[in-house]
């Protein structure tokens, strides 16, 4: 037999009652002056925060129903019947804060590891047809900005035959956009920007960049990066980003250092097989290195104005390709002394490629792309 004094809110109105709690080990009744309620089962009680110094309990299914023990004084025979107060929440209370923290940290580390690695594992499992469809849906014909002339196409095909002899890329095209950039798109597509062709001093440099993008295509890095971005935007709420910055986001899809390095190795392999010298590509990297201040100052003194914007554009490509210097070294080292390299294109082909976007009368201007 249990009997003690409590205070009580019934959850129906705001009066504070002072009934006697009378019951046994299973349940109890509240008996006030002229009223009685219950039976209430002990197991339905929920421990709440201590308000003031009182110990307060609620009921699982009765909103606002409360009983309180003044000054936290609970008779000894009731204590074992009452629930414990939650501190951190469910399972943390059961195993303790320290252990729970370590368990969480372990799970978090594993989740981060998987999150970073999973795109690389999943990407090869995405059916090629899906990726092709996705790439076409995202990019289409680049809004009519793909440059085409019969001579230019022939030159581009000659270059492709050397760098991508197995035809791993579905399309390799040049877009009429004055940015020093090249991108590998989902669906085994590569787009070289006209600004890059204009900046390049020889076809060998273009071959180097193309070889690098071929590396991304070969390793399906684009799909992995897309998955990673997708996962991140889901995880982070995906609430940022206005429409205007989206293309830039696509351009700066980051593949990670490892992927960039193996794409470089792939480029070197391809150039070696095609007997193209890697030195011009090394020079290209060196020339466009935004950190190469001396060189930029020289240029600035020479041409004034326009070069600075070129340097900014160049920074685009290198922003996602860190350590240009070490990459230049990588390509320099690949050079074999005394070997008789052949140019990637002859001078007629090279001119056709360089002037393709200017000569193509049907190509749309780069304006209006939000660049």
């Amino acid at each position, binding site marked *: 037999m249990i009997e003690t004094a409590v205070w009580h809110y019934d*959850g129906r*109105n*705001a009066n504070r009652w002072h009934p006697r709690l009378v019951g046994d080990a299973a349940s109890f009744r509240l008996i006030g002056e002229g009223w009685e309620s219950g039976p209430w089962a002990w197991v339905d009680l929920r421990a709440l925060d201590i308000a003031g110094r009182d110990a307060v309990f609620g009921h699982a299914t009765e909103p606002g129903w409360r009983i309180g023990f003044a000054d936290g004084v609970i008779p000894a025979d009731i204590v074992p019947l009452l629930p414990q107060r939650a501190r951190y929440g469910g399972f943390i209370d059961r195993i303790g804060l320290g252990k729970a*923290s370590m368990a969480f940290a372990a799970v978090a580390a594993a989740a981060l590891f998987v999150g970073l690695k999973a795109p690389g594992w999943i990407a090869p499992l995405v059916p090629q047809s899906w990726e092709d469809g996705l790439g076409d849906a995202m990019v289409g014909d680049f809004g009519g900005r793909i440059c085409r002339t019969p001579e230019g196409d022939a030159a581009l095909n000659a270059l492709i035959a050397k760098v991508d002899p197995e035809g791993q890329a579905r399309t390799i095209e040049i877009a009429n956009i004055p940015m020093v950039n090249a991108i590998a798109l989902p669906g085994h597509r590569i787009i070289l920007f006209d600004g890059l062709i204009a900046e390049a001093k020889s076809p060998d440099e273009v071959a180097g960049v193309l070889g690098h993008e071929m590396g991304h295509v070969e390793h399906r890095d684009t799909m992995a990066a897309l998955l990673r971005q997708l996962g991140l935007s*889901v995880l982070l709420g995906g609430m940022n980003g206005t429409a205007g910055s*989206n293309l830039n986001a696509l351009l700066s899809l980051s593949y990670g250092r490892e992927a960039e390095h193996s794409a470089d190795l792939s480029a070197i392999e391809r150039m070696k097989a095609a007997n193209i010298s890697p030195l011009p590509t090394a020079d290209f990297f060196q020339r466009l290195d935004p950190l190469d201040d001396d060189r930029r100052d020289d240029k600035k003194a020479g041409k004034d104005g326009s070069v600075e914007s070129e340097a900014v554009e160049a920074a685009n490509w290198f922003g996602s390709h860190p350590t240009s210097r070490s990459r230049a070294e990588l390509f320099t080292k690949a050079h074999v002394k005394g070997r008789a390299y052949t140019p990637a294109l002859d001078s007629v082909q090279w001119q056709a490629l360089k002037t393709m976007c200017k000569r193509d009368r049907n190509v749309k201007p780069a304006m209006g*792309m*939000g660049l």
Partner: protein
Amino acid sequence: MDEHSGSAFAFEGSWKEYAPIAFSNLLLTIVTLGFYRFWATTRTRRYLWSRTRFIDDSLEWTGTGLELFKGFLMVLALIGLPFLFLQFGVQALVIRGMGGVAGALAVSAVFLIFYLGGVARFRALRYRLSRTYWHGIRGGADDGGWKYGWSYIWKTICGMVPLYLMVPWSMISLWNERWNKMSFGPHGFIAEAKVRPVFMRFLLFYLAPFLLALGVFAVLATRGTWVGSTFLHTNYPPAIAFIAMLVIILGVYALLGLIALAYYAAFLREGIGALRLENIDFRFEATTDDWLKLFFGDILLVVATLGVGWLFLQYRHWKFFITHLEAYGEIDLDALTQSSTRESRHGEGLLDAMDVGAF
């Protein structure tokens, strides 16, 4: 029950008591990559509410971390996924040269966010009231806030169109609309805030940039120095001139921020001061000086503790709010019966996602 002493609300917590909650929250939030923050918020609120006394008993927060988490998931499903699609879709459209369609989609997306932002503001207030108990009784609202979302759009736009002069009207009007839908127990809140008391403050804020610009030009004119948008010509070395410009610009921003604070102080005083619940009148007595103290106190606390004080800002702000909140009148406990409003089962996820406050 009569209450005329002017201290119906009191905050009885201490930062020492709160510290273990704050630090364990931080620890758990870090090791769970942020997922614990919903439960952390709940623990903080439970503590702050339980240390907030209204007349003879403390408030009680009955919200749960799981609710907040569900609210967050709802935002992901309702907004996150469509926006992800929109993000890639707009991108594809732009690249394909269909800029018009992309623009239309983007604009409608902005309006959707705008609308949901209004709805979120309403529902956050409703959620907080429905989880706040006093004497076993809770608050709430029968309205879902869907109509309020439209009011939010048109009133905000109307406030901005006449050179932003109607902003105080739109803010006061939305405040009244929001609070008039809320209730505690069986009683509806009555909000009758007026624009006039806050308008002069707003005008001060509104005219400050013009007065400042006028002053700057007056000074420059007398000194015969010309500041153009493209070049700056003074007799000082360029570095000093640049630093001076920077100081001036930062100073202007700081000043504008302070004037905005002065306006907000007046706004909350009017908003809460014109709020009634049955026979209770509320008042909020924080002056601009109080707000300044809070603001600079925050900065000082965070800087002096090398960032650790950041954990206590929520505590400080709640204490500030309760300390300056007053209520007068009487409560009929028999008539204060349980709220019949529907309890939403999810928390203020929308609001969290858009990072706006409940008041």
